[in-house]
């Protein structure tokens, strides 16, 4: 018999995607997918990470204004930094996530500037800077909330 926790385990990532889209619809210019990718990296296998990242890339690229590549650069850097940082830090430690969040918000600022430059687009610098700082706080707080929910509902079925 399928238990409630098993249903939750199956629906966790689809629900995460839907709620992240809702949050992005409600809050302009903010990324609500990055924290989910981070949690997926920490708790799930490579297959799920690739699938989740692919869906996130398609959503961000399809609804953004840059030519294809900006989200690959951003999420690729996040995954690369995580894999690199895992060799030096405990992957689940809040200090590591804090450091990663800071680096990710810096990457966001510079990658957006670079992609805009490549396409000859003008971006409002002070707003981009503000949004990069906001991204840091959103990334941290969302990761904390997601980790809590994940632990409560999915710990028994997760890989780790």
């Amino acid at each position, binding site marked *: 018999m399928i238990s409630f926790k098993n249903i939750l385990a199956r629906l966790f990532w689809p629900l995460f995607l839907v709620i992240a889209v809702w949050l992005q*619809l409600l809050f*302009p210019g903010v990324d609500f997918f990055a924290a989910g990718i981070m949690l997926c990296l920490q708790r799930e296998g490579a297959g799920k990470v690739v699938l989740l990242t692919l869906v996130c890339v398609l959503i961000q*690229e399809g*609804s*953004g204004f840059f030519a*294809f590549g900006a989200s690959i650069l951003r999420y690729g850097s996040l995954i690369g930094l995580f894999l690199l940082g895992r060799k030096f830090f405990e992957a689940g430690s809040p200090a590591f996530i804090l450091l990663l969040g800071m680096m990710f918000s810096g990457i966001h600022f510079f990658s*957006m500037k670079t992609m805009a430059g490549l396409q000859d687009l003008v971006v*409002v610098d002070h*707003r981009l800077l503000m949004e990069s700082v906001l991204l840091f706080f959103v990334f941290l707080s969302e990761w904390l909330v997601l980790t809590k929910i994940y632990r409560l509902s999915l710990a028994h079925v997760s890989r780790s």
Partner: protein
Amino acid sequence: MTIALLLGVYTWNWRTGVLDAIAERSGMDMVSWAGWPLHWSREKVQSAWSRYFYLVGLRQENDRLRSKVTELFLQLSRLHEEAAEASRLRALYSFHPVEPWDFEGGRVVSYRFGPHAAVESILVDKGTTSGVTTNTPVITPEGVVGRVLRKSTRLSQVLLITDPNSKVAVMSRENRTQGILVGQGPSAFLQMQYVPLNDVLEEGEVLITSGMDGVFPKGLPVARIQTIVRSSVSLFQTVQAVALADLRNLEEVLMITNYAQPDVE
């Protein structure tokens, strides 16, 4: 190695647009499906609010609208005369009349969706199934809003005229002075550029689309001139204007789906 691969893919996509097309179609449709329950519930709440709670002050609103209707009737009868005169003159000079525009109404779903929306933009719930294409003009009854930059089957991204990347060919309604209206970012004035010092413009004058950019049809109201500075060190006037449409509080917009740039032969 990874950077070289990324640059290679980026350049290939820049030339062919294959990945952009895939992402545009699938990504925006995913947003549309995922966002549907949110729009549906928001619509229901809004309609319940307007039906049951917003009735306060309806009588005053009714009186105000009645007087507005009377005023508009007077304006309409005057414009009927002018339209009839214009038709006669057009026939006299064998001008081809402009085709009436087809409008498609759309709801604003979101403002600057996601971290990649570095430009001033809105997401509208109408896409290619409703006849929306790239560069479809988007307006409100008050004035021009912007143009469609990306579209999927059920959603489209609209670049607002306040964005620094937006350029609209305009002319003043009274003096017919032409220029290019450029956005300066959120909550900043629009700037009308390339207006020679000797050209006549007045503060308070309405700027309308001139149709010279091939994107917007001629005659749509866009902005009202706020300040004009004639500097002795520049060849051009510095003209600042305010958008006529309330771009910060957009809920519904109209998209002109049948406008095509007239052939120049």
